[in-house]
């Protein structure tokens, strides 16, 4: 696809990532999206803004990944006439099934409806606010609470001889985030799983609009705690894009160091739990012991076990000295050695392989059709990795090798994690060897009014996107964080079909999706 021949006029968005912006009409929205899809693109995020105090009406925004980069489309929506219940836009979930939940969430929060979508049930709204209140509208006070309503969610019923339901959650048996899973089963076999999320909805997007650019840095780092580095970088990238400035080189290299360390920390934790979930407690002890040492190094050198608040607009807080670099290199060697030993053990363990292989399979065809992304996507042959495809500094000097598998089962997602640990260790060594000298932070000038930019970062789970719109005085008009879990939760419903109920925790863990990141 060529940006110049694109059906609508595109202008480049200032920022580190290759990204363009265009305005579409309700008439051509569908054909433009179809064109991007035909060319192998996918939907990254869908959100809306209340423009009644500015240009009037509302606006729908889409971010679509295509081969040249990210294409952001805006569809202005006029305010509805009194006889119509809500402003509308043409639904796109027929083209991109992952849009369904995003469209439902958009209606819950902003009151603009996807016309023509077959699923109009609420998604993020349960009973905390009435169905005629839309918290993201500018005339709604985000601080006001409402009396609890009645929550009666219409789950899809499966009927038939011997079919029964197992309802799980929102409080789960383990140390996990809350969500509800409704299984329809015959005997041990799962016929259908329906997820219901939104339990951890904290009003992050509304809260951001009451914050300064600096305050929202901390908030962005807490959309999903396990991906704090990816979110903080994405947020910083969006702010720097609007400010039209590039942080010092050393800061960018340090950001990549932190991002790769976050990836390794999470992969170690998951590999431990995946062992634990197939009754190999040895795996948990070994991997989590390694993870704990890894976190302690982060505390010692960067001041936080999970690297929260290390990345800020303009650069990074803190720096590493020569002694720190030496200890990081030594640690990388030690970790590689240990992980290889453990991989060997997992690989040779008949019980582990029996549980991993062919469990929770998402075929490449299904993954492509439904838009599986990130780590889980790469385990089902969806070869997208922002670090390899749109390498920003320093990745443009590191030649990231993307890890992919075709089997799409738990075993494939395990293998991708192992491969990514080795690749991240290789990147860490390169980064430490070639870390440029200089400053790590530069001042960000006040942001211009009514601007827009995006941050788009390959976190450990997948593509994390931050869309930032400024309003009058360079304040936050709208902040939309998008977690890759939006893409992958629906696929989990498919991965479990035909598997037995006791394999659900294992399959779920092999995806390890964020609740907080998608509940917002």
């Amino acid at each position, binding site marked *: 696809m060529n940006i110049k021949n694109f059906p609508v006029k595109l202008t480049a968005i200032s920022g580190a990532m290759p990204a363009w912006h265009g305005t579409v009409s309700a008439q051509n929205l569908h054909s433009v999206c179809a064109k991007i899809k035909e060319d192998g693109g996918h939907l990254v995020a869908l959100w809306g803004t209340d423009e009644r105090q500015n240009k009037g009406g509302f606006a729908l925004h889409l971010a679509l990944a295509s081969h040249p980069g990210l294409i952001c489309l805006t569809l202005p929506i006029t305010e509805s006439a009194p006889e119509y219940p809500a402003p509308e836009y043409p639904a796109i979930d027929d083209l991109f099934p992952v849009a369904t939940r995003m469209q439902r969430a958009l209606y819950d929060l902003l009151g603009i409806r996807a016309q023509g979508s077959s699923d109009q049930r609420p998604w993020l709204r349960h009973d905390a606010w009435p169905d005629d209140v839309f918290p993201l509208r500018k005339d*709604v006070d985000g601080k006001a609470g409402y009396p609890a309503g009645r929550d009666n969610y219409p789950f899809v019923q499966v009927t038939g001889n011997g079919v029964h339901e197992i309802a799980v959650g929102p409080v789960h048996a383990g140390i996990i985030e809350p969500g509800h899973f409704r299984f329809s089963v015959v005997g041990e076999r799962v016929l259908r799983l329906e997820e219901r999320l939104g*339990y951890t909805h904290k009003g992050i997007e509304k809260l951001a609009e009451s914050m300064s650019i600096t305050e929202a840095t901390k908030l962005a780092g*807490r959309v999903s*705690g396990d991906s704090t580095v990816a979110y903080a970088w994405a947020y910083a990238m969006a702010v720097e894009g609007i400010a039209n400035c590039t942080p010092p080189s050393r800061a960018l290299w340090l950001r990549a160091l932190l991002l790769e360390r976050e990836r390794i920390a999470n992969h170690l934790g998951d590999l431990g739990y995946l062992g634990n979930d197939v009754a190999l407690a040895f795996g948990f*002890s070994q991997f989590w012991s390694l*993870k704990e040492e890894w976190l302690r190094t982060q505390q010692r050198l960067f001041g936080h076990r999970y690297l929260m608040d290390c990345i800020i607009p303009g650069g990074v807080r803190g720096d590493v000295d020569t002694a720190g670099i030496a200890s990081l290199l030594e640690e990388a060697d030690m970790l590689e050695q240990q992980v290889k*030993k453990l991989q060997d053990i997992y690989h040779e363990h008949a019980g582990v392989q029996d549980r991993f292989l062919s469990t929770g399979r998402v075929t490449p065809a299904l993954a492509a059709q439904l838009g599986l992304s990130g780590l889980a996507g790469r385990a089902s042959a969806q070869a997208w990795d922002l670090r390899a495809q749109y390498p920003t500094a320093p990745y443009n000097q590191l030649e990231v090798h993307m890890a992919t598998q075709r089997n799409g089962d738990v075993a494939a997602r395990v293998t991708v994690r192992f491969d990514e640990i080795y690749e991240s260790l290789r990147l860490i060594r390169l980064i430490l060897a070639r870390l440029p000298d200089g400053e790590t932070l530069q001042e960000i000038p006040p942001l211009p009014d009514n601007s827009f930019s995006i941050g788009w970062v390959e976190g450990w789970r997948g593509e994390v996107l931050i869309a930032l719109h400024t309003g009058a005085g360079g304040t936050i008009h709208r902040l939309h964080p998008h977690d890759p879990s939006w893409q992958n939760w629906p696929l989990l419903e498919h991965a479990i079909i035909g598997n037995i109920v006791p394999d659900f925790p294992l399959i779920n863990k092999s995806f390890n999706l964020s609740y907080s990141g998608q509940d917002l």
Partner: protein
Amino acid sequence: MHKILFQILRTGIKTEQPPQANPEYRTPDAQQLHEKILDCLGRALVIRHVDAGSCNGCELEIHALNTPQYNIEGLGIKFAASPRHADMLLVTGPVSRHMEEALKRTYDAMPEPKLVVAVGDCGCNGGIFGESYATCGRVANIIPVDVAVPGCPPTPTQLLQGIVTAVGKA
């Protein structure tokens, strides 16, 4: 099998001493940890965790309590799947309005006497999320809290100290 055994031998024992008392949590001497648990709960403290709306940062640190370094089960403390088996409720997050009912029901399902530890800045005071149309703020706004452990997220050591402090009050 021999590789697993060799790896276990090579790894050795990673478990560290339980944390020293933190005056801020009014914790008795760490040496008394075992005694206290023995006295109050017959050697076994069972914890039920509820995420009432956290960003999942606190969960990472609660998981870490199970690492060989902290070896929480070695101290006679374990996590249970059901509130009916629990002596203590460990609650993370600002309580989202969508989790308010589930948190109350979990608390009600626990047998008496019961302890509640609110975890993290959000659990202590609502944290960065505060109170809004979507959140009720701190855990104490919804259920009685015995001990609140600050931090974003609190370290496993701080969590362990908070747990010990709560047991001390029982």
